């Protein structure tokens, strides 16, 4: 276990350095740096998913809700700060100096104009402050996970029921945010997040910064996860996964352990999301539709559950392959009577791969390394 962690960290450091050098030399494009950075964030979310499912046996189909919530929290500050700069600049041309209220109105009009209002909803109260909003990145998803988990575990909702319940949670949240008056710009979501306020460096540079931050976060998250599963705590949660009743009879507070893992992984996912969306540039409620969380579970399954590096491999391989196949770059296969166009057939292949991996390689790609 220890050795695999070291190997992983070394590989991560190596590839980060390689990407930096190649990006500096113009060998890989900024958009690919962004893709890689986002992939690292997805890997971190997959590590969280592996921790909660592969180790603790809780198949959550709602972890992307936490991921997206993290993105929303940081997105609020990014939008606010960017807009504030624009509004102050625009108002500085007026004969009277702007009042604080006028600036607020200006910001409200700019941000919420697309949803037909200029009132600033109360949930934006802290959006002007980066430290507070960073705190919310952790607090909001963490609290949601804690409350939801407490309710669910307390009522002994387990197995399939819990999966469906988490799915319902993420669906409810997505539908709520899809509403225009949810306060987070409805279906439009938050956009232009790639422009870091107050930073004049071009995207080539900021893309690298965010890439490094993502790599750092992945390394940190991986270490944390490895430490959690390495000790006695890890043994207990694995025991819960294998036989919850028996662990309970042995006197362990099963619910407490599960709640802790559920909340911890939600926070990790949220941090991953907070790093992901400034690279993606836009976040909207579609990001937390149940399908996203199912994909997350599938990545972990393909990579190999119960192995942290498996989760990383699964997320990286599947998401990079997806973007390659749908990018129009994969060569079509002419069969004479029919041409296989990957844009049309990639999903079919992907679906088939899920089935085959589940049936034939239950330990996933990561299992091949053992």
């Amino acid at each position: 276990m220890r050795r695999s962690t070291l190997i992983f960290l070394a590989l991560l450091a190596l590839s980060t350095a390689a990407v930096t050098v190649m990006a500096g030399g113009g060998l890989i494009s900024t958009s690919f740096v962004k893709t890689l950075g986002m992939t690292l964030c997805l890997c971190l979310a997959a590590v969280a998913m592996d921790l909660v499912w592969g180790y603790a046996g809780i198949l959550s189909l709602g972890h992307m809700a936490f991921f997206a919530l993290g993105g929303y929290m940081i997105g609020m500050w990014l939008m606010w700060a960017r807009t504030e700069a624009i509004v102050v600049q625009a108002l500085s041309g007026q004969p009277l100096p702007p009042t604080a209220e006028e600036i607020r109105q200006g910001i409200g009009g700019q941000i919420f104009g697309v949803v037909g209002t200029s009132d600033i909803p109360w949930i934006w109260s802290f959006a002007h402050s980066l430290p507070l909003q960073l705190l919310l990145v952790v607090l909001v998803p963490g609290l949601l996970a804690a409350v939801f988990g407490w309710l669910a575990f307390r009522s002994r909702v387990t197995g399939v029921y819990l999966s469906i319940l988490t799915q319902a949670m993420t669906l409810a949240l997505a539908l709520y945010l899809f509403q225009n008056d949810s306060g987070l710009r409805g279906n439009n979501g938050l956009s232009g997040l790639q422009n870091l306020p107050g930073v004049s460096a071009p995207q080539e540079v900021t893309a690298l910064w965010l890439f490094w931050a993502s790599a750092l976060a992945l390394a940190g998250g991986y270490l944390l996860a490895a430490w959690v599963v390495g000790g006695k705590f890890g043994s207990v949660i694995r025991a819960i996964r294998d036989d919850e009743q028996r662990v309970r009879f042995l006197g362990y507070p099963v619910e407490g352990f599960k709640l802790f893992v559920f909340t911890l992984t939600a926070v990790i996912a949220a941090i991953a999301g907070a790093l992901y969306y400034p690279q993606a540039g836009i976040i909207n409620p579609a990001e937390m539709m149940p399908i996203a969380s199912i994909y997350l579970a599938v990545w972990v399954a393909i990579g190999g559950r119960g192995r942290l590096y498996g989760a990383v491999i699964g997320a990286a391989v599947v998401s990079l392959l997806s973007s390659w196949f749908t990018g129009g770059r994969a060569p079509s296969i002419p069969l004479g009577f029919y041409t296989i166009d990957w844009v049309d057939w990639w999903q079919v292949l992907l679906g088939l791969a899920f089935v085959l991996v589940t049936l034939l390689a239950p330990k996933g790609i990561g299992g091949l390394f053992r």
Partner: protein
Amino acid sequence: MRGLLPLLLALVLALPAHAQNVAAVLDVHRDQIEKPSRTSIGPVIDALAASGDPLAATVLAAWEDRRLGVLEDGTFVLTDGDAATSLEGQPVAGKATVLRPNAGVRGLIAGALVQFQLTDPDPAARVAAIDAIARNPSADHLPLVRAALEKSPDPALERLERLLTLRFDPDPAARVAAIESFGSSLSLDVRAALNPLLATARVATVDEPQGNIAREIPVSELGRVAAYDLLVQAGLAPARLTREAAQQALVAHIQNGQVAGIPVASLNTQDARDAAYSALEASGAVPPAATEDEVDAALASATFAEIYAEPEAQVTDAARAALRGIDAKVGAMQAADLAMDAVSLASIYFLAAIGLAITFGVMRVINMAHGEFIMMGAYTGYVVQQVVPNYTLSLVVALPLAFLVTFAAGVVLERLVIRHLYKRPLETLLATFGVSILLQQLAKNIFGTQARPLTAPDWLSGSLVINDVVAISWIRIAILVLALLFLGLYLFIMRRTRLGLEVRAVQQNPTMAASMGISPGRINMLAFGLGSGIAGIAGVAIGLFAQVTSEIGQQYIVQSFMTVVVGGVGSIFGTLAGAALIGFLQKGIEWLNPSNTLAAQTYMILFIIVFIQFRPRGIIALKGRAAGD
């Protein structure tokens, strides 16, 4: 007859002096007729109708039906497909451009045609005339209708006469009688005639309000701002100073970077700006703004009232009394309609979930591809309709065929995939999810991303109309019947057949069942096929009232799972209860917030999440051995 006579007489008498050729009238108004607008075409239609030419009715009717055309040389002709005839009916050569009056103009033409049609021997024409009047009633129609009524009594016409009397008769007593004659009728047209009588306008006066007063409004109800605005509108008080105006005044008085001695740079709060404005007021540079006290005094001296547009108090009283009775009935009927909608939605959810009740409820297999079986059923319906053009026949073919197709697909899925995963239930979720995206994409590749038409036969189109408030479409009733049918079928199979017995045996204890000579593999295969087959039939039903796309299954999958879970796994009545709960809940929330259907779905799911916390095993929880884990 006697009533009509003067009219005819007048027409006949007018003929020699004014009779004009319709063609000539058309020619004079050529521009307007070729590009008619509802707002300006009225006189032209009247001129045509009053031309006295016996062809007028024919020409107007043709114009309304878009059968009036213009040849290249400008001659007006009647068209029938590509053929054209002169207005008199002689065949004409040449290609005519058909005139296309819009619906508003056609309504006016229909209104003008009424005078010819009300006495038409053809009942269809009379019905058309009655419809035309009902759509655009006017005072002119009242004598025509009364004349026609005297000639030939007809209940529909009689009703129309009362509706027109209610609105247009000059005698208030006659109007009151007409209002009372309807009692508390639920009809939309009666309400549509009554409600405008009670239209009010808000007025503000300093003396006693004049006219048919509905009620006086206290300022507290209006709100200070709205009340003062009314006063300003009535010219009874000066407008209040707006923030923008104050700001403009400040900007106008900037001198050397100062306003009234206050530096501009310090005017970055509202308080500072107010202070600066007061300073300007004090120096007399700007007119003083109305103070709060002055506003209060102005409000106190004024009266606010709602005044009926209808001057006759006895008419408004009668209308109000009638509407009070109607409103109570309408409220009850709306509740009934909502309940029917809820039952219908519940039946749709139930039909979509009944297959899951078998595969998930009984076999504990999470089949994420269940939605795609619904989709396969819907597409089967579409394909059958392409081959069998008769909608009724195609439905008769499609329902069993959809069952067979999805039954086969279910059996294949069970044999190839699910069979290997009975020990790993969570992994069936992943594998079937793979199958789900595979099937969805295959459907896209085969049928394209366009929605495909699946049309219900004529006998299923339209609605069962109980009254003007309560109505439900036949297709929804059919789905309800289908859902009940499958409930019965499920109960019959599970409780009365060998297969059902074996399914229950295998579900409760596969090893024991196997040792009793039951083949668990075969039973699982058949049960899964059965569940999938019902999903296919649900797909045909859903496709008939909604859209057939590759994503149709996704719409129902989460709801279906929730239906089964909320109801209680393993019990068909639980599924029924779950569907009913979800259907009624959703409609109830929609009723509370009619402008946002999305909110209804959100709160419904939230409710389910909370509900499961308190009843983790659902509404109908199995106890003992049958409960499984």
